[in-house]
């Protein structure tokens, strides 16, 4: 069995190294709170101009934000409940289904970054 190549960030592409800040401790928090601040500002900003849309409910300031948050959450919760009902093991359709079948190796070009 081939030895697993050593994971050396110095060998990542420069763009990949630049993006590594997302995995630094605290970055996820910063992103979340940054998003929360932007959302808050947008919410407040929505009160600062007049709307003349055809749908009255869409003219309520902040409607899109509240609706987006609630419906997104609802979507995830319903999807999660749905999974309980319709989830089956990967091999459910037997060996004539692609779900358990490996993609043909001769049609791939697997090259490790360190290679």
């Amino acid at each position, binding site marked *: 069995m081939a030895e697993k190549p050593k994971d050396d960030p110095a060998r990542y592409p420069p763009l990949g190294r630049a*993006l590594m800040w997302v995995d630094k401790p605290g970055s996820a928090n910063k992103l979340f709170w940054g998003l929360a601040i932007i959302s808050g500002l947008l919410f407040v900003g929505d009160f600062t101009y007049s709307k003349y849309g055809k749908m009255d409910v869409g003219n309520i300031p902040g409607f*899109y934000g509240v609706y*987006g948050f609630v419906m997104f959450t609802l*979507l995830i919760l319903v999807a999660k409940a749905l999974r309980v009902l319709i989830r089956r093991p990967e091999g459910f359709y037997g060996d*004539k*289904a692609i779900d358990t079948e490996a993609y043909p190796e001769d049609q*791939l070009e697997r*090259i490790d970054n360190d290679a």
Partner: protein
Amino acid sequence: MLDQIPTAFLFFAAALALPVLPRGAVRGALLLALPLVAALQAWSLPVGTYAQVEFFGFTLDLMRVDKLSRVFALIFCLAAFLGNLYAWHVRDTVQQIAALIYAGAAIGAVFAGDLITLFFYWEGTAIGSVFLIWARRTTASYHTGMRYLIIQVGSGVLLLAGAAILYRETGSLAFELMTLGSLGTWLIFLSFGIKSAFPLLHNWLQDSYPAATVTGTVVLSTFTTKLAIYALARGFAGTEILIYIGVVMTLFPIFMAEIENDLRRVLAYSLNNQLGFMVVGIGVGTELAINGAVSHAFAHILYKSLLFMSVGAVLYRTGTSKASELGGLYRTMPRTAILCIIGAASISAFPLFSAFVTKSLTVSAVAEENYPIIWLLLIFASAGVLSHSGIKIPYFTFFAHDSGLRPKEAPTHMQLAMAITAALSIFIGVYPYPLYALLPYPVEYVPYTMAHVMEQMLLLSFALLAFGVLMRTGIHPPEIRAVNLDTDWTYRWLMPRVLDRVSVVMARIWTANVALLERWMNGIWRRLYHSHGPEGRIAQVWPTGSMVLWIAVLLGITLVVSFAS
């Protein structure tokens, strides 16, 4: 000269010539040059009908050029070019020919001026495309391809039957606007509905697209469904039932996509959802709505190709497209990651990205025509798009947990194809007017208003915030190795078992019947044997004696009868 050659024939001629060309750069050059020549032809032909031929007494219009057919032909040519560039490394002649026939048939279909021509090309797309699935050359892809082919050819058969009935009713085979009502129009509508992936008729899409080759799925994502959208826009614009069908199409896939593990299947559900927006637009049928459906189809082909390309590049480098096995790939595939994010932003309709300037035409048309519930559901579906295509695809592939995979960046030609597609998606988003100029009707819509930008940003930022909250609280469902049941369960699981049971019951009934018959025959035989066999009563009297006895009886009866009369 070029105007008398149907655009589709250029592709078919190239498909014939391709096998004799050496593999590699020469074939690659033909595959790239051909869609550009075809696009030039489609662009330069004035509105009109060309290349009419006689066929069993019918006049077939092979090239009906108008604004609706031209815009679809142009985006099909562009998609064929990008798909072929992405597949530059492919040396499989079957895939190359299949892609040419498939693209040619789709372009031929959008230029078809009559239902017979449409039928031939309609079936051509089925036959051309199935080889992109079979080219994977595995048992599972063979079976998936067969299921796909049966459904696609079935759609064509319905189209032909509908056309025949319609001809009997109206005496015309022209492919024009129809009104639902007769059996013929319903059959044609159903045929278009299968390829458009209407609810309950949709599952061929999610079943087959993940089964195709890396490059085949990119090509598949463009043609069949958008050809069906074109056909609906041509034949059934303003048919109200499409609004309700379309809105269901926008909704159910967002739930399915959320819990699907195979990212190419997630994208297939996402494709279904995007088709829903187009179907709603066609159902509304106003100029604004039709422009919305057509422009959204145009933009959608690009960003959906881009997403399939990026996931395909990951599959090409890692051997899997399952979210549960991926994650953290941004480290070594950062360009693919960023291009994928551009595709995700485009489909999510962020300002400055393509869907922002196309989907909003349809949503505005729905509001203009006063369908408040439909409008609310479309806004919900827009948040759903962000969930599975905007977040799930890039996040679980390139970020999230570190899978430990460190694949090399995608090959240069794949990156180039993705970069051009991404650039076009941004260009359309930033400056939509060249696209608007291609649309069937004049566009007065202004996408960049304060209200539209603010509303969309609010919707997306709060939906993203909800995602953040759900992730931090652990409520968001994890990616797990599993399959989810959909309508294909009926013909992949239920039907074989029902048929098995039925055949067992039938076999038992048959066996019981045979046994009963045998017993009955044996009984008769036994009784006959008992009376007529060597030991039987009849055998005790010799046949001559028996005959004399019966003659005496007959004579006796004759005497009695003579005496009586």
